[in-house]
Structures are given as structure tokens and as C-alpha cells.
């Protein structure tokens, strides 16, 4: 096995990772029932709770965003693999409240199946929960049916606005509507340069030639159809931002959030260079970048590449984006 990683028994990866994470940030989060990461100090039961689910191996996502003003809990599966419905319903029971739960699911087959099953069980048990599906990948085309569009890093700023709305005491319908507004005005495009190694199988999750890159790569190295020769940072940025701006239909005078999310091995230096070019392009259209993030939020192990994310923001969303938060990997004073 040619894999060079700091791991022990590959079967214990997720357990060890969650133990490490929750103990490193024991002032903010706690591990409940093996696979559920919860806020250390739960929010008041009168407020809507925010729940998500997803595979591990994308750190700091998703559990890195459990905390005041963001998620109340995340249910973690195995590496790149959704958790089963039983754990999800367990988390729903823990969060159960009259105010209700907003349940954020990223559009990946396994996540959606577990999510749907858990929703069915919740209904039977009388748990008040509404599900929202993120599907902002525009690689298959922005007009492509929802089931073809993956949920990528956009979930994370979505947790932020929904979490802030919940923290502000809004009702489940209100929080849902805010999240849906964000959801319907966001778009992501990923680009890959170098593969990651699956930490359990030891295999590279895709291959790219020495001079190739791929725009439209999925979250786990699922190849898309956008292979091309390596482009410069500026060319890559402009190619991606053009499509993203079209997808969210932003126009002169609009305000956007712009995020560059590193896949793992791509440096922040590169991300800033790309960010710079994308922002310049956007400003050239008379669109204002009013909130930005550059860093690793949702990674794919040590894959080389990044996701570029755009969301149109109105004043309500912008305010929620800047509202206080205290998750291990997203803190706002």
C-alpha cells in the first residue's frame, strides 16, 4: 500500500478522529453515542435546532461547524460514507423539541437515503423536523434536475445563516425559509489537480495526467466531464466565476458571498491568488463582494484543487452571515 498517512488501523479512522476532535475542542463540542457531535452547551429548547449528517474524511466539515450560532449536532458516517438512518433518528430524538429541527442534507445518494428514512421514522415518532437538501453543484449545468446536482461546500455558509436565524429565535418555518432562500441562490464549482488517497483502501480516488486539471470534480473524486490542460490561476478563476455568476443570476448592484474552499493540498497562497482574480472579475460586472471566506472548510483528504462558491446575499442574509458564531472552525465575534 503506497499510502503515506499518519493513521493507525484504517477501520478505526472515524472513531479516532472524532475522539481527537471532540477532545481538542472540548470547550465547544462533545461526542455523544459514538457518532453524534453535539454542542457542549445545548441551545435553549425554545429555539430551532440545526442538524446535519455526512461522511467523515472531509475535515473540518461537517462537525467543525457545530457550535453556538451554527449546528446543534452533526451525525457522522464513515470515511466518505453517510451514516445510517438509525444514528440519525437517535440524534433527532436528542434534539427533539416543540420549536422543531431543521435537518440539512447534502445531495449524495447515501446521505439522501439515510435522511429520508430518518425523516420517515421521525414522522412516526412525532418529531417536528423539516429537511432541506443542498444541491448547489453546477457541474452538470445550473438548470440540470436537482437530483443531478451534488451538495458541496455550500452547506457550510448555509449552516451559518440558518444557525444565526435559529439562534435569533426565529420559528422553524422562518429558519427553513431563510435557509431555502440561501439554498436557491448559491452555486459551487470544484476543480481538481491531484488525487487524494482513500485512507481505508489506500487507492487514489481518481487519476489525472501530469498536465491535466478537471473542473466539475465531485466531493469524493467522482470525475466529471470538464478535463482540460492546466490553466493559470487567473484563467481558472475567470472560467469558474463566469459560470457561477451566471448560475446565481447575479447582476450589477447585487451583493455576493465569495468562498474559496481548499480541497486539501492546494495552498492558501494559491487560493488567495484565485480569490483575487475571481473578485476582480466580479467587481468588473459591478457586483459587490460583501463577505468572503478563503480556507479549508470541506476537504477531500489531500486532494489538490478547490471549490469556488458564490451566494447572492440580501441584507437579511448578510446580517446573519456576520452574526456571532462560536464553532471550532467558524468563529465570529
Amino acid at each position, binding site marked *: 500500500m503506497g499510502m503515506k498517512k499518519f493513521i493507525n488501523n484504517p477501520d478505526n479512522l472515524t472513531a479516532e478522529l472524532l475522539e481527537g476532535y471532540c477532545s481538542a475542542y472540548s470547550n465547544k463540542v462533545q461526542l455523544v453515542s459514538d457518532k453524534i457531535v453535539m454542542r457542549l452547551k445545548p441551545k435553549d429548547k425554545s429555539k430551532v435546532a440545526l442538524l446535519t449528517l455526512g461522511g467523515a474524511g472531509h475535515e473540518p466539515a461537517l462537525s467543525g461547524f457545530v457550535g453556538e450560532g451554527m449546528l446543534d449536532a452533526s451525525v457522522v458516517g*464513515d470515511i*466518505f460514507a*453517510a451514516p*445510517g438512518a*438509525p444514528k440519525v433518528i437517535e440524534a433527532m430524538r436528542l434534539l427533539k423539541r416543540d420549536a422543531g429541527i431543521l435537518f440539512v442534507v447534502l445531495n449524495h*445518494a447515501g446521505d439522501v437515503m*439515510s435522511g429520508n428514512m430518518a425523516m420517515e421514522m421521525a414522522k412516526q415518532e412525532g418529531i417536528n423536523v423539516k429537511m432541506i437538501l443542498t444541491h448547489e453543484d453546477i457541474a452538470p449545468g445550473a438548470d440540470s434536475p436537482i437530483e443531478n446536482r451534488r451538495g458541496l461546500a455550500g452547506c457550510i455558509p448555509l449552516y451559518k445563516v440558518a444557525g444565526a436565524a435559529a439562534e435569533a429565535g426565529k420559528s422553524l418555518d422562518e429558519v427553513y425559509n431563510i435557509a431555502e432562500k440561501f439554498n436557491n441562490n448559491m452555486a459551487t464549482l470544484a476543480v481538481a489537480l491531484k488525487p487524494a488517497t482513500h485512507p481505508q*483502501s489506500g487507492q487514489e480516488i481518481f487519476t489525472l495526467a501530469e498536465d491535466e486539471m478537471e473542473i466539475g470534480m*465531485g466531493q469524493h473524486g467522482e470525475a466529471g466531464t470538464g478535463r482540460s490542460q492546466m490553466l493559470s490561476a487567473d484563467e481558472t478563476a475567470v472560467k469558474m466565476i463566469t459560470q457561477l455568476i451566471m448560475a446565481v443570476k447575479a447582476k450589477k448592484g447585487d451583493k455576493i458571498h465569495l468562498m474559496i474552499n481548499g480541497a486539501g493540498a492546494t495552498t492558501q497562497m494559491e487560493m488567495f491568488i484565485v480569490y483575487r482574480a475571481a473578485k476582480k472579475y466580479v467587481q468588473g460586472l459591478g457586483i459587490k463582494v460583501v463577505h468572503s471566506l478563503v480556507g479549508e472548510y470541506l476537504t477531500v483528504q489531500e486532494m489538490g484543487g478547490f471549490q469556488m462558491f458564490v451566494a447572492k446575499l440580501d441584507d437579511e442574509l448578510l446580517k446573519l452571515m456576520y452574526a456571532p458564531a462560536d464553532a471550532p472552525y467558524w468563529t465570529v465575534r
Partner: protein
Amino acid sequence: MADNIGYEGIVKLLKAAAEKIKANRDYLSKLDSATGDGDHGTAVFKVADAITGTIAKDNSKNLKILLKDIGWAAMSTDAGSTSPLYGSLFMGMSESIADDALLDCKAFVSMMEAGVTKLRKNTKAEVGCKTMIDTLVPAITALRGAADSGKSIAQALSDGADAAVKGAESTKEMKATFGRAKNIGERSIGHIDPGATSMSLLFVGMKEGYQNG
């Protein structure tokens, strides 16, 4: 001798099927590397482990309960698409039978059908979409055909396994329209679907388990 199968018989089938799947872990992950994210072997190994683990610690000796517990355990494996799909197969089987079920060939096939029906509630995939449905549908059709023409359970399992293997092979020429493989579109053609393959191993394992039992 009455051609019936009950708790002990099903346990034998499932144990053999689980071992069959476990033995093909790496092969299945390799198939998934070509069209998906390379983890189907790991995923379905955990499901197989859930089957044998649940059998090992079952005290109920009640087939309905055993199948429900297997379904729940399979669902709990945190294995992407595989856990809900396999999990609901067993849940559906459990829900369709009575507590003290002793099944003749027709009843056995009905139980399998109920499992597949429940599994299919998770997905809109049809035959031709390059998924495990391409294995399940012909396998169940063969089982039903055997039962309706009065064949033995052994013969039905054999017909089912043959159809399952053919079904899995048929995915090779298909273009994926479901699951992760859909993302690579045309490039999926020429690769056998991993989920269809693991599902065919389940049927082959059950057949062999019955024969060697």
C-alpha cells in the same frame, strides 16, 4: 420431506452469502474505483459483518426478529448508499412475514419480493440504470417464475442466482444514470457496477449455502 425453510435454513443461506461478499471485498472496491469512490467493498463488507454479527448474537430464534435486526444493523453500518439499500432489503423481508414463519417456496419468494419492494422505495432507479436494481429485478423474476412453476427452493435459488449473475454482467454495457457513477456519464460504460455485483454475490452465496447446508 417438506420443501420448507425456516429460521435455521435462512441463517445458513445468509451466513454463506455474507462470507461470499466478504471474500470479494477488494474486488468490489476495485470495481467502485472505476466508476465511483472506491469504497463499495468496504461498505458491503460491513453489511456482511452486520449479517453474521447479528446472527451470532441473536437469541430470539425468530426469523422475523432476526431479519429486522439484520436490517437495522445493516442500516447502522454508515456505509453510504449501501447501508440503506441493503438495510431496507432485510427490513422489507421482516415486515412481510409472520412471527413463526416456516416458508414454502412461494412464501420464501414472496418474502424476497417484499424485501426488494422496500429497497426500491429508496430509489427511482429502474433496470438499465446500472445499479443493483439490474441484479435484483431479474433475480426476483426468476425466483417468482420458479415458484409459480412449482420448482423446489433449491431450484428457485439456483435460477435466482443465475439470473442475478447475468443481471450484474448486463450492467457492463450500460451508461450509469444513478449513484456516483452517473457523474462520469459515458465513461462508466465498460465497467461492471459494484452494487449490482455485490447483490449478485448475495444470491450466489444463498444458493451455495442451501446446497452445502
